[in-house]
């Protein structure tokens, strides 16, 4: 069905899209403002906020810390989440649903509760205010995204493919490496993107677990708005929107069009 733009449905779609995308679009001109307050439209143009972002050690360290935390939390979440999904896939329906509920629970539990629990626990373990503490808690938050994406992929996986690989002489590991893994890779990639974005973007836990040398970008952004109303945040936001959009577009157009299971569905 082709959607015509000037029908009530078309207009509703356009309205919703504008409401969702407008803040992100308005941020871009504001980040190139020559003024020193959040003004729209900007009084003039400059790249001062970008310069500030890269020259101010506070902002630079926050970006690096966030990248470090996400870069460590993402592979951890991928490993645990993918293995957990594979394990769930082999269980009976009842166990699978129970296991799934437990693994996805960080999505349901208010982050502030997880943050408080992590804070109390990490304080005793000496992990509060450390990168390790941040990585561990962000991993826990990112696992649900991986489990959901990979499990969805496994739903469409035909178990007889593994049996076929075994019957043709592959060991269990080779069967996984050559058949299962390539077929669930799109799920793993999607999980990785969501895991990375969720941990890069996370504020509440990072706020509670922060310490000297462990201030993530969202925490720095929060502080800058609360304390100094620093327009550098518009430059950061613009870069974040651009980076995340690029990754998501890459995944959509790069991966899904090459997806063998998708093709099978069309045939």
């Amino acid at each position, binding site marked *: 069905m082709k959607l015509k733009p000037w029908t009530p449905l078309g207009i509703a779609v356009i309205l919703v899209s504008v409401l969702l995308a407008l803040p992100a679009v308005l941020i871009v001109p504001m980040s190139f403002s020559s003024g020193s307050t959040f003004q729209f439209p900007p009084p003039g143009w400059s790249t001062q906020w970008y310069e500030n972002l890269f020259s101010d050690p506070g902002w630079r360290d926050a970006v690096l810390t966030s990248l470090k935390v996400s870069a460590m939390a993402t592979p951890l979440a991928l490993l645990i989440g993918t293995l957990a999904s594979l394990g769930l896939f082999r269980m009976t329906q009842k166990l699978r649903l129970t296991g799934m509920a437990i693994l996805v629970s960080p999505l349901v539990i208010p982050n502030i509760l997880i943050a408080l629990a992590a804070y109390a626990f990490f304080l005793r373990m000496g992990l509060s205010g450390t990168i390790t503490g941040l990585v561990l808690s962000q991993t826990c938050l990112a696992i649900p995204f991986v489990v959901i994406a990979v499990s969805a992929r496994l739903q469409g996986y035909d178990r007889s*493919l593994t049996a076929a690989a075994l*019957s*043709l002489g592959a060991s269990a590991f080779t*069967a996984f490496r050559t058949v299962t893994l390539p077929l669930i890779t799109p799920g793993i990639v999607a999980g990785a993107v969501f895991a990375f974005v969720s941990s890069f973007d996370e504020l509440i836990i990072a706020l509670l677990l922060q310490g000297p040398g462990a201030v993530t970008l969202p925490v720095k952004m929060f502080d800058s708005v609360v304390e100094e109303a620093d327009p550098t945040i518009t430059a950061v936001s613009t870069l974040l929107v651009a980076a995340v959009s690029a990754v998501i577009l890459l995944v959509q157009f790069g991966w899904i069009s090459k997806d*063998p299971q998708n093709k*099978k569905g069309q*045939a």
Partner: protein
Amino acid sequence: MSESQRQGRIEIRDLVLQYRNAASPAVDSIDLTIEPGEFMTLLGPSGSGKTTTLNLIAGFLQPTSGTIRLGDRDLVSVPPSKRSFGMVFQDYALFPHMTVFDNVAFPLRRRQRTRTDVRTLVNDVLDRFGLAGFESRKPAELSGGQRQRVALARATVFEPSVLLLDEPLGALDRKLRAQLQSEIKKLHRELGLTFVFVTHDQDEAMFLSDKIAVFNKGRIERVGSPTELYDDPGTQFVAQFLGEANVFDGSVEEGGDYLWNGERLRGGAASGDQSLMIVRPENVRVSEQADVAPEWNAVAVQVLDVSHLGSSTRVDFRFGDGTNGTARLDADPTIALRSGDTAWASWSPRSQRFVVPDREPAAKVEVAA
């Protein structure tokens, strides 16, 4: 006879698979010997244990007890990847992310064959299956018949001693099915491998097999050649699963006659448990008068339906005891019988067979799986 062929004898002894929370075993004390080069079909309705038995042979399931031997090797502790059986799956199980070439090369690469070997062997086998030119296609870009051929090529390229086929034609339409049945039969002749073929389709089993093992409720009812099983089924289940049968539930008289529904039928040669008498529809004649051959048995029936099937005419009727029966006559478009008529069904005592009744009371077996 090559080495791999000599090795192809499969001996199954007292094989049992009992799932933990199932009331009865999925496979119940099965004994079966499959000779090298034989085409053995495991035939039965769904849930009868035939596919489970194939999966036990393939090694995807572990038996609760019993042995499976290939030649002089005990297989039970051997993982599926080391059994070296070719296997063709119901839904082909081609690797969707690999080309036809890579699919067929898969078992060779697992066996560390050289690149040159792989290329030569794969191209040879693709030629044999009429798939030359399709090397770089993905499975999704092939027709159902082509996928089936790729699956067969992949399962035979590494020269296994045994080929296991799990309802490989189930997903195809009738015409393609018939064509691939002929191809599988030809392949069996050419390769000389042992084939173990699972199906619920009795015609397919009759057409393809050297021997058929008929499964029912986890047990093997009978093993034999298609003609043996059809001509002398031995049990009511086999009689009704392989073709149709008119069933007479009576008893053998002192004099050797068979007493059924108050009538004395000639030639009651039943023995032991074989208390039911059956007659195949093609051995029954139906006529309006009782003018039958002198030695034949004849009973009055009520005609229910007359169907013209092209090459034959089928008459369905009801016996005096209320059970239904069928006769298949030579095509006779001018037949005078009509639904509701009273007629005579007759047959030669020589076409009568005696069978063991089903453990449960005689019920029409559900053929569709």
